[in-house]
């Protein structure tokens, strides 16, 4: 390799001082995120890093569940990554969403399915997409709400995943409307019950508020 100056010994090779750090961070991110396509993801990572956007990095390493042998699609961690990247915008362009989706090496069909569910146009509201993603993750309404709470909460992990009541009610009512099977009165009653509990907890809804209700039909 032609070098600007003649070098005579190995000691003359100069390494940029930031390089080791960058490499380390990148490696750690890669290890945590475990992308299927490392190159694609690495490109996304560095472009986001250079632009100063939130990085497509999972915060916790997610052990793949035994049930998902094949390259499964959306996982809660990935959804969280997407949320991290896209929630500041509020309403996102579909193209951008697709791009981000691709960066995480997620299957496109899943995205298409989600978008079809929601009947979205060019601009989509991120919260709704999030809700739909949660519904993909969880089988029932309540489990999707659980996922949503865990993704949206600002509390540290493991603690009570608290979500403001407004957000919760919005997501719940949206999903209930999408679902179509649940009558509105029941939704109202459920939300009302939750609201009472939330009022005692400074307006925040806790996981245990709606999970420990076995009497509910759904």
């Amino acid at each position: 390799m032609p070098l600007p100056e003649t070098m005579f010994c190995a000691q003359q090779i100069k390494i940029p001082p930031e390089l080791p750090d960058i490499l380390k961070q990148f490696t750690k991110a890669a290890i945590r995120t475990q992308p299927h396509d490392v190159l694609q993801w690495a490109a996304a990572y560095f472009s986001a890093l250079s632009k100063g956007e939130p990085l497509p990095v999972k915060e916790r390493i997610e052990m793949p569940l035994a049930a998902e042998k094949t390259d499964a699609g959306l996982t809660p961690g990935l959804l969280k990554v997407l949320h991290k990247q896209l929630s500041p915008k509020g309403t996102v362009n579909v193209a951008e969403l697709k791009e981000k989706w691709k960066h995480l090496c997620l299957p496109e069909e899943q995205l298409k399915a989600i978008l079809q569910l929601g009947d979205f146009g060019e601009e989509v509201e991120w919260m709704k997409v999030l809700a739909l993603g949660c519904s993909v993750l969880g089988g029932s309404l309540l489990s999707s709400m659980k996922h949503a709470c865990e993704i949206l909460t600002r509390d540290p992990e493991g603690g009570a995943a608290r979500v403001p009541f407004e957000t919760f009610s919005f997501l719940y009512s949206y999903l209930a409307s999408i679902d179509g099977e649940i009558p509105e009165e029941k939704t109202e009653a459920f939300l009302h019950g939750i609201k009472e509990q939330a009022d005692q907890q400074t307006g925040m809804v806790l996981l245990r508020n709606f999970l420990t209700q076995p009497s509910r039909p759904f």
Partner: protein
Amino acid sequence: MLPARQPEKEEVAAAPAVPYTYCSRPRALPARPKYRAARDAAELEKEPIRYANLMYDRRVVRGNTYALQVVPVSTQPSPLEIQRQREARKRALARKRAKEQMQPRTPEPVEGREHVHVQTELYLEEISDRIIEVDTECQTDAFLDRPPTPFFIPAKTGKDVATQIEEGELFDFDVEVKPILEVLIGKTVEQALLEVMEEEELAQLWARQRAYAELRNAELAEVQRLEEQDRRYREEKERRKLQHMQMLQKQKETTEKIAAWAFAQRYLADLIPSVFNNLRESGFFYDPIERDIETEFLPWLMTEVEETLERKVLGRTMLDSLIRTVVEKRLDAFSRKPLSDQTEAPAEESRPTDAPHQVVGETDAADQPVAEKEETDQPVPEEQPSRHISFRLEESDPAGTEDLETE
């Protein structure tokens, strides 16, 4: 004192030899005699030497010496002493002046000039007579016998060969960089892995801890709620019990009250009739007319009747007295004729039983019925108490006379 001591010292020294000898032996001080003995007297007579007690020695200072202040006998010097001091001072001054004058001096400055002390040097120098001396020495090198030997350079053997380094031969980047890269990348990956693992572990621990804390909070909340509930139940129970007790108490009181009321009623049922009976018997319920009649009319009637009767009685008494007087007069008249009045004497003798002897002494004319009445009144009350009422007869004279007339 020492020479006198010597014989004693020797005496003591003659005793068993002591390993230590004094330069001057410690000795007890003898007492100082009060009066000075004559000089030759001490040699001539050898009195027994008396040793004094240190405590009673006048030469020893008593008390604390640190605060001992020597106070002069008088705080102010006496005028004699003052004068002496003054003279001493004067003498000293005079001596000083004389000394000064004796000293050689520089002549006084000429007119228009002035002597001034000047310092010529930069630094102060001590002027002294002694000259400063410094020793120095010098030594030459020893002479060398022979010059130094030159270096040994061996003769040249062998062949001269030259070589030239081309560019790129010394240093191959890829080869050289490999170990660096290996280290760099390897270490990076290894470090990254380690760090990720550590972070993961930590995060999991924290997550677990928080989850546990959540559960615990939930349980605590549940426990608190149950406790609250329990407390409320207990309080409710207590309140109900209290209420019931109060009710029972009230009931009891009510029954007691009723019983008491019934009993009292029954007990006092007779009370009213008996009371009324008693009152009626004691005369509280009176017919006012009847009472009026009883209280006023009847007494008045009685008094009237009494008056009437008294008047009657009075009339009778008057009549009696009249008859008596008449009879007495007749008796008198007839006593002069004693034979003819013997039949009327027993009638008169029966009369004086009515009237006392006094009447006999005060026989006035019957024309004055008032006076006689008075007289008769006086003896009458004395005789019979029923005639006390006759005092009233004075007032009701006209009525009495009228009654007399009517009768």
